[in-house]
């Protein structure tokens, strides 16, 4: 933790707070989809709930960024009050660990689109295993569970990986990230 700068910590937590609100706003969206399609409705947009770990890791590029940001976002969701309860904190930690595992696999060296999408997929896999036990997916039919799993993986790769990268890149272009890893990379590119 000592090689984190305070400003990175505060920016990470602000991102987490912002996306905690986004996460909460998407819960009713998920609920509407569930109403139409059954439990798979959540999985279609599940990627939105991993996005902060991908954004924070991509911007700050330090071990722990993905895990911590997702955990903080979940904690803020719990403190604001949500319909899932304190267990959401554990779900957030597990999702964060999933995303973190992808960055750890590249030894925190690669931050290209592929790695970010992989992070989304890993978060989807981790969260699905967790959800399987917590929400009792065991009661659903096997084919349906497999469809849910695939939907969640695709959603993780596309929504959190691709959109997360696009958002961070758009932010970097405004120049606010100039003192963070992503902003520095942008400056180098511009100089070259």
């Amino acid at each position, binding site marked *: 933790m000592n090689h984190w700068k305070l*400003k990175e910590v505060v920016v990470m937590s*602000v991102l987490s*707070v912002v996306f905690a609100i986004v996460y909460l706003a998407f819960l009713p969206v998920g609920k509407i989809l569930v*109403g139409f399609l059954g439990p798979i409705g959540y999985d279609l947009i599940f990627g939105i709930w991993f996005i902060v770990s991908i954004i924070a890791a991509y911007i700050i590029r330090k071990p722990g960024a993905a895990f911590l940001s997702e955990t903080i976002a979940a904690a803020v969701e719990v403190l604001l009050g949500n319909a*899932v309860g*304190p267990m959401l904190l554990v779900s957030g930690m597990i999702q964060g660990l999933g995303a973190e595992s992808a960055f750890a696999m590249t030894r925190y060296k690669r931050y290209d689109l592929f790695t970010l999408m992989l992070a989304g997929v890993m978060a989807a896999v981790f969260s699905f295993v967790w959800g399987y036990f917590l929400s*009792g997916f065991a*009661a659903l039919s096997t084919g349906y569970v497999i469809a849910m799993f695939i939907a969640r993986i695709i959603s993780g790769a596309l929504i959190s990986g691709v959109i997360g990268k696009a*958002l961070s890149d758009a*932010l970097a272009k405004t120049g606010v990230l100039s003192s963070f890893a992503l902003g520095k990379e942008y400056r180098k590119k511009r100089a070259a």
Partner: protein
Amino acid sequence: MFLHDLNPTVKALTIIGLVFLLAFLFDPVTPLIYICGTMVVTFWFGTFKKKHYVYYFLPFLLFAFGMFWTTLVFTDKSTASEENLSLFGINFPAEDVWVATSLGLRVLAFATLSLLFLFTTNMVHFILSLIQQLKLPPKIAYGVLAGYRFLPMLKTEFQQVLAAHRIRGVNKPETWKEWIVQYQRMAIPLLAGAIRKAERTAVAMESKGFTGDRDRTFYRPMKIQRKDWIFPLMMFGMLGITIALSVYFGYFSFYGGEL
């Protein structure tokens, strides 16, 4: 009163432990009794506006019903028993109704526990207690506290950006599509503003001598006292008694490794 004075870390860990145990129960009776017990404890030992509790509880009820309904409709049709129950004019195997009710009530049991925590805990005390009891690095903890303070500010910021867009001739969204486009247009300015402010806050903290060192003093020292252990004892004891009761009456069913 007693719930407000508890050490927040002890309270949080107890609740997480309870939720974990409850997740392994697959019958509706045990969570139902436990929900009632938790509510009694919350109202008895906590002071807060009862009306707010109801407001918070209603969405949970809806969510629990959603859980019940989706499980019922999308579950593997059970063939274990011939018995059928009719709900809203549709017939379901009795066993499926049983499992669905238990999953719905489980959501409610989690909800009552989290409301117990929410309504009796001061957020700042909770974070201070996490630093002092669970050795959370102060750098993270105070960073998060600072970030949490941005929450009300984000709202005003949002209104400002919105007003600025209107002045420059962006019309009020009228269709669904325009509404989505409006949010897309807001995202980057809002995030950029928040990041700038966060960076400034961090600089201000450091300029006032914040190092993030663990070796620091606290304005509000948080300690775990002997009386703090009453709460976990009480809550786990209550769960034990509930389980014992439902075993005695033959309702109890535990996670049997169903995959």
